[in-house]
């Protein structure tokens, strides 16, 4: 009897030891592996997207902001679509045929998640949810909206998807400031039960996202809109193929408005051909024509090569250089004219005289000093610059024609920036758009950019007087805004095509600043191939003055008494 009891006791102890050993095996030895499997089953790691920063105009209004959109997806295993509901559903989805094709072609595939539509508004999502289609779900998507639309397109650029499917800015401010606007995504690690509900007492670890910083710009949306509407009307009136207007704050170099037409709507950029996305004002080279005379003349004044009273010694007729004859644009010549008259009459021969007095090396050095042949450094992604040949590749004919703006290519932004140096007492200020960032109500302004002296204040003042004289007594005097003094210059340049100049195609331009004594804005208007008249004096100039009249009123600039004289 005792022996049996002993055996029973041994059996219980043995069985107990066996359990302990098995528990030890599963809970200690196999613990890492089982914990990993458990985490994989009920652990969840989700990326928390960072909201993208806004881009705001100078008055704080968002030129670009975020909007809530939804992606519709189906679980093919569960998705069921009745015939009476399918028409209602496909009518609500954008790209109906695309959605139908996705559903039809992927039926039966071993997929758990299949997107069928992007960019659904909350209203559309709510209406689809009412249909109660089994297996149809939604995920949130970030979308960008551009309240000011096309007028601001060449400032803002747009946001699209890159190769990895993430949001990325392209062109303009969205492209240049993409890293700052994007912020950093966060992460949420938590444990979920079988119904995907968070386990309250489970592990939870949140790395909060860092929202993108909001960008504050110098863009004045009222000026932008004025310019947009005026240019739109101007293209029709002068039957021009395209046109641009650039308005810069003369004192700071900040860009107030920049419009190029035809343009595009950044909110629907896929509806437009890709070659329209690039801002021609910062990326396209053009020959500036007679507007470039302001640069060469002010350089010569600064170098002491000429004064406003210097008499032109070769202005009695065409000039022969390297076998070619250079003529005035209208074959009219002014023998014995002075430098003020050269600008007044836009005399090409007079400018050849100026370039000879200045000398080739000095003239090219000044051209580079004014920023041509280099990037301005503006904070827009697609800026580029035409290349200036090295000095030893400039032949006499090139040197002569460059003096009146032909045979040299610049961008419109370079041209505005250079003339703005004349407006600003000889100080060249790099152009900028963004002036600071804002995060959680705290504004951080960027430090002001350093100006560079290119000509003396005296030379700038002399050049300004010559430009005012050209406006008051030249061909554009009929378009002046009464009571306001404007310093400006016309330009009409032939367009080079395949190594020669097209005799029928011109770029008409007008560049200037106002009020001349204390400039508030510097503006360049260019019209590409205006059919009504090729001349800048009859197309770009009246458009410039039409915009300027509105800007005088908007900026509350009082009439300038010196305009009487």
């Amino acid at each position, binding site marked *: 009897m005792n022996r049996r009891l002993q055996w029973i006791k041994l059996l219980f102890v043995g069985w107990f030891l066996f359990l302990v050993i098995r528990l030890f095996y599963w809970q200690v030895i196999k613990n890492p592996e089982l914990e990993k499997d458990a985490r994989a089953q009920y652990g969840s790691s989700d990326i928390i997207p960072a909201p993208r920063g806004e881009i705001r105009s100078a008055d704080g209004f968002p030129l670009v902001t*975020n*909007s*809530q959109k939804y992606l519709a997806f189906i679980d093919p295993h569960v998705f069921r679509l009745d015939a009476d509901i399918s028409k209602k559903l496909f009518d609500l989805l954008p790209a109906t045929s695309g959605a139908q094709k996705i559903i039809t072609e992927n039926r039966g595939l071993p997929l758990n998640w299949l997107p069928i539509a992007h960019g659904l508004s909350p209203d559309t999502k709510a209406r689809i949810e009412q249909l109660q289609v089994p297996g149809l779900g939604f995920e949130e998507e970030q979308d960008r909206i551009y309240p000011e639309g096309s007028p601001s397109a060449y400032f803002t650029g747009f946001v699209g998807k890159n190769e990895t499917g993430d949001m990325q800015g392209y062109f303009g401010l969205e492209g240049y400031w993409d890293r700052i606007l994007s912020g950093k995504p966060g992460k949420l690690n938590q444990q979920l039960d079988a119904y995907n*509900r968070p386990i309250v007492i489970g592990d939870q670890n949140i790395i909060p996202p860092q929202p993108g910083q909001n960008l504050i710009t110098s863009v004045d*949306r009222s000026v932008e*809109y004025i310019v947009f509407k005026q240019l739109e009307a101007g293209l029709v009136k002068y039957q021009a193929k395209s046109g641009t207007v650039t308005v810069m704050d003369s004192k700071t170099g900040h860009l107030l408005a920049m419009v190029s037409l035809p343009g595009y709507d950044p909110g629907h950029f896929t509806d437009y051909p890709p070659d329209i996305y690039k801002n021609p004002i910062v990326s396209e080279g053009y020959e500036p024509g007679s507007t470039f005379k302001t640069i060469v003349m002010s350089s010569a004044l600064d170098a002491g090569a000429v004064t406003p009273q210097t008499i032109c010694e070769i202005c009695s007729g065409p000039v022969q250089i390297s076998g070619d004859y250079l003529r005035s644009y209208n074959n009219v010549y002014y023998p014995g004219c002075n430098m003020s008259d050269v600008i007044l009459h836009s005399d090409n021969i007079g400018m050849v005289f100026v370039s000879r007095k200045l000398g080739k090396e000095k003239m090219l050095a000044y051209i580079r000093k004014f920023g041509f042949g280099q990037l301005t450094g503006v904070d827009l992604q697609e800026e580029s610059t035409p290349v200036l040949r090295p000095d030893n590749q400039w032949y006499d004919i090139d040197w002569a024609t460059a003096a009146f703006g032909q045979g040299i290519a610049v961008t419109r932004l370079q041209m505005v920036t250079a003339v703005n140096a004349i407006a600003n007492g000889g100080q060249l200020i790099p152009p900028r758009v963004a002036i600071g960032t804002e995060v959680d109500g705290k504004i951080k302004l960027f430090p002001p950019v350093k100006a560079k002296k290119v000509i003396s204040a005296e030379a700038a003042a002399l050049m300004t007087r010559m430009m005012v004289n050209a406006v008051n007594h030249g061909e554009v005097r009929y378009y002046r805004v009464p*009571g306001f003094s404007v310093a400006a210059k016309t330009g009409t340049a032939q367009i080079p095509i395949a190594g020669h100049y097209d005799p029928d195609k011109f770029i008409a331009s007008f560049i200037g600043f106002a009020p001349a004594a204390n400039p508030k804005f510097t503006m360049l208007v260019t019209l590409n191939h205006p059919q009504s008249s090729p001349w800048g004096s009859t197309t770009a100039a009246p458009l410039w003055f039409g915009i300027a009249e509105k800007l005088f*009123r908007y900026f509350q600039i009082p009439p300038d008494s010196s305009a009487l004289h």
Partner: protein
Amino acid sequence: MFKNKLTLYTYIGIAVLLLLQVYISSIRSSDGDRITDLDSKINRLNSQNRELQAQIYLHTSIASIQDFAQSRHMVPAVIENLGSVTVASLFTKP
């Protein structure tokens, strides 16, 4: 069965604690459900706020205001500034 009352009370205490743990666990286990629900409501409201804000910006843009005005047959006002120079020029003899 129980050698003394202490042992009995100990067993009763353990049983009560076990029942309490089961009861509290069952209540707390549905917290995750409520939290998810509240989270969804907060997200929905935040989405609605963001969407409303976006609509406000769209409708208060200059382009939108201009289109609205033109759709109601309003025309841009013509403004003349009468400054001293403009007025003086009216009285200037040729």
